């Protein structure tokens, strides 16, 4: 980058520093104090978090919730992306619109719609009972399974779009070559298409994972107050209990945990890119 080029990023860098880095430093400082006035330094908030199994069980539950919802997203999202990439230009725009559609409505609206679907007298239970599959309505609201289902749908576009981008950039000759050399459809998919789409898969996983574990609205509306994940925990400590230093500490811990997971995925991403080029 030239000197004038680097000067061009200065405004953005300043904005980023003022609106993101600086508040984050304040948060970090607050987490290291015992009071809001920030008079006495302490690591007590962190000690409190890690000496209490209740706290880190919430952290583990949250990180696992992200893994489950991301996997469901991937399992359903990959075929959609694959279909989109293969479709004719006109169908592709229709499918793409359907994929993006959820982003166009507010997450609160989407989540409330899911309450209607998952409820005891909801659409899903009525279908299941009408078909005689179950006799008692299934409990889906206020369960982790319900949260995973809704998160997977709500965050689906974040998975589909990166995979679609990679798949549609892929040279179709590669698949043809594979077939000419005697590989069947499945073998071509496992040996050629899937490895080449890894960067897209990993990008999608990073996006959906971080969106899933921080989805305060969906987690608390579908999960209710019995299933406590980190965002609700932070909210309760900050607003309900008015314990800002502790809320700040668990926010920092949560952020570090997310960064660690994303960092691991990024290492995979880099490795898969070299694989793609080779």
């Amino acid at each position, binding site marked *: 980058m030239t000197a*004038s*080029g680097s000067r061009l990023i200065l405004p953005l860098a300043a904005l980023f520093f003022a609106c993101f880095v600086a508040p984050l430093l304040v948060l970090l400082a607050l987490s290291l104090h015992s009071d809001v006035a920030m008079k006495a330094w302490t690591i007590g908030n962190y000690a409190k978090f890690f000496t209490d199994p209740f706290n880190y069980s919430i952290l583990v539950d949250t990180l696992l919730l992200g893994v489950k919802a991301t996997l469901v997203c991937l399992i359903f999202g990959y075929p959609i992306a694959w279909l989109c990439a293969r479709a004719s230009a006109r169908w592709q725009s229709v499918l793409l619109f359907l994929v993006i559609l959820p982003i166009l409505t507010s997450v609160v609206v989407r989540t409330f719609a899911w309450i209607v679907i998952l*409820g005891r007298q909801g659409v899903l239970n009525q279908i299941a009972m009408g078909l005689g599959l179950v006799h008692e309505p299934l409990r889906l609201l206020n369960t982790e399974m319900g949260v995973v289902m809704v998160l997977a749908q709500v965050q689906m576009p974040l998975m589909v779009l990166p995979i679609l981008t990679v798949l549609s950039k892929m040279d179709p000759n590669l698949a043809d070559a594979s077939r000419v050399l005697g590989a069947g459809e499945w073998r071509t998919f496992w040996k050629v298409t899937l490895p080449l789409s890894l960067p897209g898969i990993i990008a999608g996983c990073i996006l959906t994972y971080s969106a899933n574990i921080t989805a305060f609205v969906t987690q608390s509306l579908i999960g*209710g107050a*019995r299933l406590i994940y980190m965002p609700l925990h932070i909210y*309760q400590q900050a*607003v309900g209990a*008015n314990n800002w230093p502790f809320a700040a500490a668990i926010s920092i811990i949560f952020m570090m945990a997310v960064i660690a997971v994303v960092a691991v995925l990024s290492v995979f991403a880099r490795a898969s890119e070299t694989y793609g080029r080779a």
Partner: protein
Amino acid sequence: MTSSIERHSFNRRTLIKAASASTFALAAPRLSWGQSKTLVAATFPGTWSEADRQIILPAFKAQTGASVTQSIVLGTDQISRLVAAKGNKPPFDVAFFDAPQVIDAVRDGLIAEYPAAQSPNFKDLLPAAQNKWGPKITMQVIGIGYNPDKIKTPPTSWEDLWDAKYKGRVGLTALNSQLGIAFIAELNRIRGGTDDNFDPAFKALRELLPNVGAIGANLGAFATLWQQGEIDIAPYNFNFVQTLKAKGVPVEFAIPSTGPVGWSTSLHVVAGATEPELALQYIDLHLSAAIQEQMLKPPFDVIPTNAKVKLEGAITKSLAKTQDDLAKVRTFDWAKLNPQRGALIDRFNREIKV
């Protein structure tokens, strides 16, 4: 990058001009909007934000020419926002608090003393409602909400919630809502606890768990549980029952045999408010007999605090025939309960799990 800009003879000056023109275009509607004054008033989600929007806002506009921007947040959230903005411009001019938040707000210097002398309707309030930090505009009462389609005999006691026939049908709210805290405090009192010892309440809640179908993370989610038929019986607020009923949801309100229990709700001028004059007028409007009579009508059924307003409607059916009956509604010792809120939320999260 630089070369392409030069090639299109797009120099820095034209760029800045274009940028400032578009900024002005964006700001323009705001400028014309700002000509009439705007008051920012906090209000609660549900009954109160709707009643304010339908009754207060048009009357306020007619009286002052100013408009109101509603900031719809719970009392505890308002405290957090005011604390966060301390020393700066506060995020709203009028605070809308339940009794416990008033104590915290006075302690932290978040609200100004109410200029009662300049508020013509203040003297018409019941003596108990004339608080010097801000007038009480209503009272909220909790009892048992139930679905009359599913429960034919109205419940008569809190103990009914523990009845085995309501397995999986009882609802609760998290303790960050006033409803949640008030219910656990009342339950604790009935089961023989004191404000220093909540063991009896938590023991009772653990015994209730088999009956609990869902715990709403907030009051909006709780209302949805009723609408979707997820729960049939739960501690609920008199006004929320009326609001849901008006929307066609099958829900009724019963007062348990241990008597009604509640707390006052009040309005306050925020310390350092941008529009203190308008804030005073807005609060005074809430106190007028004419307005409180309108608020008393369904679907809001807001309990009045103006002594001139005669009780009528749903209130007289289940709650109180006269203002004297309302004075008998038992209240809580918030000065003792407030400091425990954090610990109670924490304990609820740990002990009342699936």
